[in-house]
């Protein structure tokens, strides 16, 4: 795969990297370190070219959530995100209507009650579609919001909707129209929010852990990228990008061990992911321990073999 016309991370991926950062977690969302397989680069390019959402799935620790901030950093776009929970509703991603505040103002009487539009709080997609409008709306609603330069706004936005499968199944479906039309209406006031025509279409990156199946209409509107769990070579490369490589190739040996454990673990023990691999390397480096002996065994136990079920208590 050779297409890199819109988006090419080559040469930019390491910019701003903190060598040997021993404090950051493996699942970094700061966009400083990312390894770019060619299929991932192609998928981002296709999503940009077709102005479609990019749906990213794959096992834990494969870089689903950290893809968006990295794309944002490399493309110079603004990065916006929403971590979806089981309580998230589709409308929360567009706007929220503060009914409680309006009710309080109404009961206070006098001049406290404002126009209905003043109780509308912009959501992440409003901010992506029309950042100036969202900023004005926040001001109207009396909410503090950071100012951004015109140049930054002109570059467009990358929006991460993280773990969409945590929400009820109707949430992705309810977003189809807004993501397709790049506009939506505030039901309570009839106010229309539209994406700016002179701006690049926001790149919406949606991640899923495959806990639930997503509806076919949603899938049929997305560019779908599945990130595979990295093999030992891939893990070693990630360690190198994080500055955790060793001259004596200990990071390669640990990577091979992680793959071995991953292939062998079933049942109550969680399969070690990239995050756990990096944690184990950091722990090993910090404790200056060789890959044999009790200390490494302890590191392996606590960092690589994460129990997914509480241990049963004896009766």
């Amino acid at each position, binding site marked *: 795969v050779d297409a890199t016309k819109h988006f090419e991370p080559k040469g930019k991926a390491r910019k701003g990297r903190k060598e040997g950062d021993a404090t950051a977690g493996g699942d970094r969302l700061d966009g400083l370190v990312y390894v770019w397989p060619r299929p991932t680069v192609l998928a981002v390019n296709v999503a940009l070219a077709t102005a479609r959402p990019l749906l990213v799935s794959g096992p834990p620790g494969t870089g689903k959530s950290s893809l968006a901030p990295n794309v944002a950093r490399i493309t110079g776009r603004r990065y916006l995100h929403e971590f979806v929970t*089981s309580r998230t509703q589709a409308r929360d991603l567009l706007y929220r209507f503060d009914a409680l505040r309006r009710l309080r103002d109404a009961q206070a009487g006098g001049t406290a009650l404002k126009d209905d539009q003043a109780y509308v709080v912009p959501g992440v997609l409003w901010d992506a579609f029309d950042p100036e409008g969202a900023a004005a709306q926040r001001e109207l609603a009396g909410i503090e919001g950071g100012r951004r330069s015109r140049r930054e706004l002109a570059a467009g936005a990358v929006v991460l909707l993280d773990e969409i499968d945590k929400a009820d199944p109707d949430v992705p479906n309810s977003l189809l129209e807004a993501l397709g039309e790049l506009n939506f209406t505030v039901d309570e006031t009839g106010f229309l929010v539209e994406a700016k025509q002179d701006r690049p*279409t926001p790149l919406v990156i949606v991640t899923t852990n495959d806990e639930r199946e997503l509806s076919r209409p949603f899938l049929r509107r997305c560019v779908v990228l599945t990130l595979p769990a990295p093999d030992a070579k891939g893990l070693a490369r990630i360690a190198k990008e994080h500055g955790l490589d060793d001259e004596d190739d200990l990071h390669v040996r640990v990577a091979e061990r992680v793959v071995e454990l991953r292939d062998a673990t079933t049942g109550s023990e969680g399969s070690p992911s990239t995050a756990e691999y990096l944690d184990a390397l950091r722990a090993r480096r910090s404790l200056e321990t060789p890959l044999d002996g009790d200390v490494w065994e302890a590191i392996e136990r606590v960092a690589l073999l994460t129990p997914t079920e509480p241990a049963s208590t004896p009766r």
Partner: protein
Amino acid sequence: VRRRAEIYVGDLVLAARALDASPQTAVAIAELLGFAAVPSAEPVQVLETRRDETPELTPQGEGEAEAEDEPVATEAEAEPVVPSELTRSTASPLLPSWLSRLEPLDAAGAATEPDPEPEPLFLPRWTPGILAAAVSARDREGPVDVDRIVRRLAHARPLEELPRLPWPTLRHGAQILVDASSGLDPFSRDQVHLVARLRRIVGSERVEVLRFVGCPTRGAGTGPVRTWMRYEPPRTGKPVVLLTDLGVGLAPFATDRAGTGEWLAFAERVRAAGCPLVAFVPYPRVRVPRALRRALAVVPWDRTTSIGAVRRLVGPVLEPTR
């Protein structure tokens, strides 16, 4: 750019042109866009339509030796030439190459292929909607209930809380009770499939599956029968889903058949715990005793069941209790 429609071939063209894609990259783009590049198991047969050559069915990719075995069509000289884009083969019947490769069927009992999977009882394209509608609890977390507010304020009563409309959610997960009675034997694979579908739709970590015989009040569990315990309803608000025939598929005096009274007592326990109760029954509703139809939402597990019908049937039992 406005993209209301589903991904179509225009997206592929757009992406391939925008990225100056090579043929190999174009295939990768097609896969990303959901166009499955499935290699054909059988070579595609192309009908040549050039009038100046002998028409023949040309299996692509086949070796020379194999191609020689194919009967070659020759143009009939006596036949007048009619101007046409298509020409007709006048050769002896062209037998497909696979015909000569057919092997005799295995003797009875020697087949190693598993039995074909049964057709699902719900219409496949409606199944996610049916299950989501049946298992969604209704929390009062929807839009503000203006009618209730107006009623209270019109009576000059203070609002102690902001009333909201019921809103469907799968957040609470579900407890699935699978009937292992002999009457359900014909549906055991349907039960397995439906449990798998429910796990995919509700989320596997939110789904608890227990088995029982007769009625859950006789005991339920996950492992062998001897390990089953006294049945306890889940925490308040978590829907309970029965995959059962409610005893209607068994002979009246079968030992694992629970009576209507036993089922009513079970339904009352679940209701008292504040859990919605829905039963998927692979028989028509009319065969279920009327008292049971009133006590729990009985959804016919059948191709005729629609999402709307499920909403009507389960709507009342899923309403929030508070």
